[in-house]
């Protein structure tokens, strides 16, 4: 604000300077009122030619004008408008009028008369068009003023007869934005005496559907659409006209017409329209569906995209028409041919797999009647077949999306479009492939894939792109397959994938988990083969570390969960492996009831109810810590220690509660540190003696501060109660720091400002958490706030004393947990850190390092997540990835795929750099903006407003900068 004011002052000042002192006195008077209008007036008067005036106007347009001086400026502009002879200057003035009318807080009704007046006298068509535009702005600023609106509509109707297309365009736009159904209009009487009379806005606009100028036709349709958007019911009469415009010569008209037809089809889906050249009748929505389908073959790809998109939202269309969109009748030499899809289906039905694919395998069968072959399939025929094969990928994507929407509303259509979607997995553009995989996943809940379809789906698993593979894994998780061969095929392909791209390990395992639990009965007959057991012979025990073997086990165990008989097929080592995996990969391996076997079963204790029991345990632990103040110092410390340990273990065991457990543990650790710091012996010593001893306490204070930032920013799902608690701990830590500093320094002088800031912080805490304050009655802050009036007036020494005593008296605040608490985590998938081959590059040049990481529960990662590269010499570089590098594969999940550039001076040997991810926070959003610039008394990490928290394990990458060759 201050800066803005400064700028304003400066501007006024500069205005004054512009005026030569020998100006006439009355002009000085005008100048003295602080407005821009005067300066503008002077400028315009000074302007010798039209170009110069235009220059001034352009300059003026760049500045903003405040609401109260708008009217003055407008008066001046109008004055010049009437005087001006040059069209371009008038045009600019009028456009400025429009701009100024948009100013907030200015009511433009005072210029309506002038603008309309100008409209009647204006000769230039361009200026007329601009005037209509300005009137449109004014009209939309005054939505409630009916008389103004009526006048504007009349003006628009009058000028509809203009010969210049721009004026007609604008008039139609005005009608679209302001016209009402209930107010009938009289059309311009002079031009069409026969048509004079009362007509409503719609029929006036629809007259211009047949205008000779394509731009006017477009504007007319747009105006009609605008009417629709404003909630007016469009008359069905125009349907026929709109349909005729679908075959217009100009793409913009066709595009708008598609929208128009769509709107009508949504308004009157059930009304009946006749089919020309026959006596039949169809529902309007079906008719329009057919017509829009036809547009998927349009010559312009923009129209094709529009049409394909529109089809997706016509859900009321009847079944017959919908299925026609996938229809393709093949013929060869006039003989009916089966499509590849049909052939595949038949093969499947006849139980024969993998054909010999003979020459003439697709030999045409029966002869077709020449009359029955319809080449321009009328209506919806094959719209999607064409759309999916379109040259432009935009059209293909639109078609895939439309398919998805339609398939979701009609299961039988979903069944039919399956083949086509599967075909799209082979598209040349990755985006299209990805989109079709996603779509298939969305509709795949109630369909079963045939073997040949599954085969195509699985074919994509070899894809180089990780996104595609992961999308496919996701798809397989949701897919139902028809027989055991399919399961086997899927497993085989997934293992191949695992072999080819070992980094997909987790994703593949997860995929097999779902595959197993979905098809227990199909897995059952495969078990002996999968586990390579033999009825008579013992087979060698497989390697437990082999990811492929684990994958098989995950499949089997998950199937066994729903199929108790399966366990009888397991051999001994399988049970051992089960217990191992149940422990190490508990999220993938379910608890099994393995009755009768010696092994087991402990796993089943952590059955489905375990989450609740863990929850109870967590709550119990917290409650226990709440009783802490009743304990003796060493006892309470021990209790905290144990609780922290328990919670950490709980977090490891129960992933659902990891966030909450971790949060609690960290909070308790802060409390523990605080407690320890306050129980140091040196509090009882004289100040000069404790110079050395308080090192530990200082470190504790610093650590608590760090932890509080973690608590505040790393966890998502915090409520203001928790935030307040965290801030409370932070205040305690600050107070501790103050007290410690006071004890070290000789004088208290440098502390004065810190104290002030501390008080400010307390104050802002009070303001920020006003609603939470009742919970803090007994706490450190509560007590401080009681003493607040005294504190702000007292001296520093006294303040420190009060702080010290309150701090030592204060007890731990009980922690309540919110419903959902998640810790932001990041895992760097790539680089793996396993490579022994150093990245070699020449000194002074850069090398790009690919980074691939998954982030969970990170809000707004684009601005918060950074990559840190730590060189062996201690140099740390923080790199901010581009926003485009983040993808969002699921809720609360992000993928970061980026490149960081490394460079360094020459080394003699390869060395490790450490790459890790940081979560940046900015405490300007927190309660302590005033603390910001205080860096002198505090160590830098706490002092800076912005900080970073490492939230991933760091990965070591071997690099080797070689000296440049001369």
């Amino acid at each position: 604000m201050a800066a803005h004011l400064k700028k304003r002052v400066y501007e006024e000042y500069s205005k004054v300077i512009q005026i030569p002192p020998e100006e006439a006195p009355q002009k000085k008077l005008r100048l003295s009122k602080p407005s821009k209008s005067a300066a503008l007036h002077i400028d315009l008067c000074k302007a010798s030619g039209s170009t110069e005036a235009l220059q001034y106007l352009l300059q003026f347009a760049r500045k903003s004008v405040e609401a109260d001086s708008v009217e003055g400026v407008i008066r001046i502009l109008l004055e010049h408008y009437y005087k001006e002879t040059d069209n371009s200057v008038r045009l600019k003035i009028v456009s400025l009028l429009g701009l100024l009318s948009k100013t907030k807080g200015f009511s433009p009704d005072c210029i309506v008369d002038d603008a309309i007046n100008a409209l009647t006298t204006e000769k230039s068509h361009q200026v007329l068009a601009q005037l209509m535009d300005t009137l449109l702005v004014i009209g939309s600023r005054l939505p409630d003023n009916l008389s103004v609106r009526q006048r504007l509509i009349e003006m628009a109707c009058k000028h509809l007869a203009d010969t210049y297309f721009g004026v007609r365009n604008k008039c139609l736009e005005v009608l679209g934005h302001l016209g009402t159904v209930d107010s009938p209009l009289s059309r311009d009487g002079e031009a069409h005496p026969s048509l004079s009379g009362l007509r409503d806005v719609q029929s006036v606009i629809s007259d211009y559907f047949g205008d000779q100028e394509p731009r006017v036709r477009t504007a007319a349709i747009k105006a009609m659409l605008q009417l629709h958007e404003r909630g007016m019911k469009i008359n069905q009469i125009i349907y026929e006209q709109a349909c005729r415009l679908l075959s217009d010569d100009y793409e913009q008209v066709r595009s708008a017409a598609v929208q128009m037809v769509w709107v009508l089809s949504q308004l009157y889906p059930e009304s009946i329209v006749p089919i020309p050249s026959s006596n039949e009748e169809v529902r309007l929505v079906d008719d329009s569906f057919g017509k829009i389908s036809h547009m998927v073959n349009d010559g312009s790809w923009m129209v094709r995209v529009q049409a394909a998109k529109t089809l997706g939202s016509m859900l009321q269309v009847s079944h017959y028409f919908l299925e026609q969109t996938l229809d393709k009748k093949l013929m060869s030499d006039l003989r009916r041919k089966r499509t590849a899809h049909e052939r595949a289906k038949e093969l499947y039905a006849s139980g024969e797999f993998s054909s010999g694919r003979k020459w003439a395998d697709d030999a045409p069968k029966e002869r077709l009647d020449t009359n029955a072959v319809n080449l321009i399939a009328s209506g919806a025929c094959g719209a999607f077949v064409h759309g999916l094969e379109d040259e432009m990928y935009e059209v293909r994507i639109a078609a895939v999306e439309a398919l998805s929407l339609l398939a979701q509303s009609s299961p039988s259509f979903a069944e039919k479009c399956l083949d086509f979607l599967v075909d799209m997995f082979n598209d040349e553009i990755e985006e299209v492939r990805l989109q079709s995989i996603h779509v298939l996943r969305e509709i795949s809940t109630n369909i079963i894939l045939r073997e040949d379809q599954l085969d195509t789906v699985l074919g994509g698993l070899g894809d180089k792109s990780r996104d595609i593979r992961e999308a496919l894994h996701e798809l397989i998780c949701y897919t139902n397959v028809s027989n055991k061969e399919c399961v086997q095929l899927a497993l085989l392909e997934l293992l191949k994938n695992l072999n080819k791209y070992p980094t997909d390990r987790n994703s593949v395992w997860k995929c097999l988990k779902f595959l197993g639990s979905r098809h227990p009965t199909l897995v059952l007959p495969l078990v002996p083969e999968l586990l390579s057991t033999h009825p008579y012979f013992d087979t060698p025990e497989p390697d437990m570390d082999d990811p492929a073997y684990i994958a098989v086990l995950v499949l089997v165990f998950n199937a066994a969960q729903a199929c108790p008989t399966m366990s009888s097929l397991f051999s001994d080592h399988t049970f051992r492996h089960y217990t191992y995996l149940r422990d190490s990969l508990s999220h993938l391996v379910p608890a099994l009831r393995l009755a009768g076997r010696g092994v087991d079963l402990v796993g089943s204790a952590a059955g489905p109810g375990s989450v609740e029991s863990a929850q109870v345990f967590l709550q119990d632990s917290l409650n226990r810590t709440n009783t802490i103040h009743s304990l003796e110092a060493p006892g309470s410390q021990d209790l905290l220690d144990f609780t922290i340990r328990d919670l950490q273990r709980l977090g490891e065991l129960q992933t659902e509660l990891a966030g909450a457990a971790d949060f609690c543990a960290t909070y308790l650790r802060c409390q523990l540190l605080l407690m320890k710091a306050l129980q140091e012996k040196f509090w009882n010593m004289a100040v000069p003696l404790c110079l050395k001893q308080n090192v530990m306490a200082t470190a504790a204070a610093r650590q608590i501060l760090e932890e509080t930032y973690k608590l505040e920013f790393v966890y998502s799902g915090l409520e203001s109660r928790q935030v307040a608690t965290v801030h409370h701990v932070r205040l305690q830590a600050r107070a501790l720091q103050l007290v410690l500093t006071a004890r070290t320094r000789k004088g208290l002088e440098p502390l004065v400002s810190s104290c002030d800031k501390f008080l400010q912080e307390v104050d802002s805490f009070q303001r920020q958490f006003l609603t939470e304050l009742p919970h803090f009655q007994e706490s450190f802050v509560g007590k401080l706030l009681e003493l607040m009036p005294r504190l702000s007036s007292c001296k520093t020494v006294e303040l420190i004393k009060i702080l010290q005593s309150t701090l030592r008296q204060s007890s731990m605040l009980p922690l309540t947990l919110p419903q959902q608490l998640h810790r932001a985590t990041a895992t760097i998938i790539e680089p793996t850190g396993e490579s022994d081959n150093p990245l070699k590059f020449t000194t002074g040049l850069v090398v790009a390092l690919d980074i691939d990481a998954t982030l969970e529960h990170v809000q707004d990662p684009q601005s918060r997540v950074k990559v840190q590269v730590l060189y062996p010499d201690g140099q740390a570089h923080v790199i901010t990835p581009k926003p485009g590098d983040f993808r969002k594969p699921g809720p609360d999940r992000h993928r970061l795929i980026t490149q960081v550039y490394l460079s360094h001076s020459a080394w003699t040997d390869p060395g490790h750099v450490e790459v890790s991810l940081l979560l940046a926070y900015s405490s300007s959003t927190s309660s302590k903006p005033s603390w910001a610039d205080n860096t002198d008394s505090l160590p830098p990490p706490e002092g800076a407003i912005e900080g970073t928290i490492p939230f991933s394990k760091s990965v070591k990458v071997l690099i080797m900068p070689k000296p440049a060759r001369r």
Partner: protein
Amino acid sequence: MPEIKVTPLGAGQDVGRSCILVSIGGKNIMLDCGMHMGFNDDRRFPDFSYITQNGRLTEFLDCVIISHFHLDHCGALPYMSEMVGYDGPIYMTHPTKAICPILLEDFRKITVDKKGETNFFTSQMIKDCMKKVVPLNLHQTVQVDEELEIKAYYAGHVLGAAMVQIKVGSESVVYTGDYNMTPDRHLGAAWIDKCRPDLLISESTYATTIRDSKRCRERDFLKKVHETVERGGKVLIPVFALGRAQELCILLETFWERMNLKAPIYFSTGMTEKANHYYKLFITWTNQKIRKTFVQRNMFEFKHIKPFDRSYADNPGPMVVFATPGMLHAGQSLQIFKKWAGNEKNMVIMPGYCVQGTIGHKILNGQRKLELEGRSTLEVKLQVEYMSFSAHADAKGIMQLIRMAEPRNMLLVHGEAVKMEFLKGKIEQEFSIDCYMPANGETTTVTTNPNVPVDISLNLLKREMSLGGTLPDPKKPRTMHGTLIMKENSLRLVSPEQAMKELGLSEHHLRFTCRVQLQDPHSDADTLHRIYMHLKSVLKGYTTQHLPDSMSVMVESIVVKVSSSTEDPNTKVLLLSWSYQDEELGSFLSTLLKKGLPSVLC
């Protein structure tokens, strides 16, 4: 009525040897100049003697247009221009101009060097011929002479294939050449604007076929190749050097890239390398994907596809080889086939049609034992697959193009007569336009109904506008008066005054006069007054003036004078006079007055 005449010299109800003569608006144009692959005698070239018995063609043809570089569309070009003799311009697109001479040279080598024919065109002739070529850009309007202009549209099919619009005045013809309405891996789909030509000459190779989607074919192809390679087998794909070969290369190249495969792909060297070079250059003629990604990487700079060497065929391990020619009848593809045929792990994929008698045709028909020259037999154990990749529009595609261009007449070429018949029927039924399918040498005449543009003087327009409302309303036609002047090949509509001024004529006025006798006992002046009153009461909407001093009444421009008859003072003679513009009113008045005046006048 103006006419457009079309005479196919080749490709009339036939495939091959495309050569179509069009005369439009007094201009003669030759569309394509191809050869027939099936013949080795004179029949392989079009019969140019149809145009002129002896002598050069230059004076009979205004231009020659070549649609694309396939030999059945350009093979006879050097023969026509150099041996028969033609010096006028030859139009073709840039890629066609670049690739065409390579193919012609190759063709010449085979016929002259291998088959030993004489009296054939030489390398020099090809060069000379190419010097006459004028390159075309897409959508560029080229003015051949003052009246004839041509414009090329994208046709898909092969690199540089174009459809051509030929326009003289307001008459126009579109020739499609070969085109493809479905995009493939390296080319886009044909496109034309709504140019509403008088005649659309379209190919109709697949007039009776509707093809399955290309995706199924591609998927099958890739799956077969992938499976074989994974098994460790070798894949042989016999191709012809240009066109489909590039498409398949792109297909495999992207698949290899996508799937991160390592098995080598080879391409037999020679002519194809040169051609690939041109594919790299003419990126703008390819499809969306290649155009958009070429900044990062030109798709035709293959990463996985390497040139083939004879010795590689014996290398162990999986590989994919593209080898020419496409029907396994000779050359490298046959050699490799012989080497690999014995192993059932290997596979041969025939991507196109095979002529009867070739090995390709035999193995496709399931023959497992082949007799080779020298009495040896070859056991075919490898898998044989057939995959059709063809780049012509199918019946639906042709209909789609007609819908895009909206022609007034249709003419089919480049297809078999029986199939054309079917399509012709369909076109006539669906679009209700005339469709022709002339045989070679048969002339089709299409009468056109061209618009005749007339210049109108601005003053006249303005006057008309001031008379009757501002805007022309498309729903209400309006008549206007003017004079049409036809002078020096131009038509102008001007106002009559101006026309007279220009032609140096003086204006003649035509007046009708008429006498009406009236029984009226009053004096002349009174009669006149009574007439005035009467007319005024009858003719409400007109201006009626009473001019007593000249003894006349004026109704608009009609003058009514009264004089007494010399014989009978009660018989008044009325003299009516009107100009021809007011004929209607004048005759009405005369009949009105003949009836006499009503006795009671207010």
